[in-house]
């Protein structure tokens, strides 16, 4: 469902990051993607280092608590493996842009970006409040061709339930033309509490079960964030050769996420 040249958002704010779906995009050898994510995280480091992307729209591009995303840096600093255009925002702006997309508004409105250099390099404009004259930021809505998320559960009808840190996933889904959801579990009945975050089946395109599909990110109620892997990624991704060897061994040479995880277990390292 992802095609070369698509504008794709794989969302999940530290929690429920759709790693399994990202690996599948890499295995399919997609090219020229415009990748959107507030926090690119390791999954976009892998996509960018694998040459899938020509543009990145983001607001914070690091390895949380660890340091740089070396593949992202290499693409920006050295144009390797390919040049990467950046459209750079602040979190507040990205959130407003996603909400505008979900609301089918052409732009999001916020008090932001004032006195920063960001608007010199992105598409943010400033408008005047028709009542007070205050200068406010306007950011173009985000409308991905495809949004991909990972959630905890779906029922057999395809209604999706997620809980915990919910990030901007509902907005990313409702802003998109097509939606792909992977879930930890497909259940007969979502026993969702009142006002839970449920995405009805009719706004979700494809749902498929991938247990552990957010690893090394986490799924609340299923498994914790693998902080050790996040730290280890720093040494894997620092050099092109080690990165490529790792991708070859664990992603490109495996056919699905289960195999990927088994291949990791064969080289267990303590951190």
């Amino acid at each position, binding site marked *: 469902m992802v095609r070369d040249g698509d504008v794709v958002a794989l969302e999940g*704010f*530290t*929690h429920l990051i759709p790693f399994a779906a990202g690996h599948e995009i890499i295995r399919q050898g997609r090219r020229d993607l415009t990748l959107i994510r507030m*926090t690119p995280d390791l999954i976009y480091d892998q996509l960018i280092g694998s040459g899938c992307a020509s543009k990145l729209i983001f*607001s*914070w*591009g*690091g390895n*949380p*608590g*660890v340091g*740089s995303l070396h593949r*992202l*840096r290499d693409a*920006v*600093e050295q144009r390797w493996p390919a040049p990467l255009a950046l459209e*750079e*925002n*602040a*979190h*507040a702006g990205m*959130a*407003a842009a*996603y*909400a505008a997309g979900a609301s089918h508004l052409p732009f999001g409105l*916020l*008090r*932001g*970006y*004032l*006195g*920063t*250099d*960001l608007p010199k*390099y992105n598409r943010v404009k400033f408008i005047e409040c028709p009542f007070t004259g*205050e200068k406010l930021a306007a950011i173009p809505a985000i409308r991905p061709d495809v949004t991909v998320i990972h959630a905890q559960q779906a029922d057999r009808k395809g209604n999706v339930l997620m809980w*915990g*840190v*919910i*990030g*901007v996933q*509902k*907005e990313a889904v409702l802003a998109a033309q097509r939606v792909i959801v992977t879930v930890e579990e497909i259940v007969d009945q979502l026993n969702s509490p009142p006002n839970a975050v449920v995405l009805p089946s009719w706004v979700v395109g494809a749902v498929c079960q991938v247990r552990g599909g957010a690893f*090394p990110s*986490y799924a*609340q109620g299923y498994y*914790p*964030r*693998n*902080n*050790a*892997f*996040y*730290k*280890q990624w720093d040494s894997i991704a620092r050099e092109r050769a080690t990165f490529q060897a790792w991708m070859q061994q664990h992603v490109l040479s495996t056919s699905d996420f289960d195999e990927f995880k088994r291949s*990791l277990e064969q080289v*267990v*390292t*303590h*951190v």
Partner: protein
Amino acid sequence: MSEIKYTADEMMTIAAARMIRNGASCFVGIGLPSAAANLARLTHAPDTVLIYESGCIGTKPTVLPLSIGDGELSETADAVVSIPEIFAYWLQGGRIDLGFLGAAQIDRFANINTTVIGDYYHPSVRLPGAGGAPEIAASSKEVLITLRQNKRAFIEKLDFVTSGGHFSGGDSRAKMNLPGKGPTAVITDLGIMTPDETTKELTLTSLHPGVTVEKAIESTGWALKVAPQLATTEAPTETELRVLRDLNERTARAHAGQV
């Protein structure tokens, strides 16, 4: 009582923690700010409301999160809301007493760069970028900044202004009608700087025990102003050190383990 040994980083974190008023709502970034805010919560400020940009409000982690959205943050929070809501209703909504930021580079008016070193399109170093910082710096009622002090970090001119402090100094921030009053202190491993009341230029007002003025000046990329009556930061108490070290140990244990 024998003298207590501690590191410069411990002093920095403890000095930063002391600045948090009990009961304040704090929007905290990951890393040093998170460590200082949690130390405050575990010592003199038990009712501090910790807010992380992942949407966790009133969270009470037992270990320091590695990421801004670790599971424990949401499991121990009073409320967990969406990202659009945390930025629109809570930060922009004027609910944050204290924004607590780190930085890669800072200038004399406490403006921050976390975006690039060198030319934007051909950077020598590509940094992570803005995250929540620009609006935290603009909308929090008050802002604290903490980072290690050296000439590469404390520089004359920023290559990129990611988050505004006091801009070009004087009344330049006031003229912009931002909701918050901006940075009120910068806490480093050497001492504490606060903006001059009129010029808004960062001025060294306190040195940590054993640090010389010369050291602070040569670790700053501009001609650092020093307050006429320069204070000495109170050394860490046994309690502060014990709580911080326990917190760091618990954290190290939690983040180690198998891949």
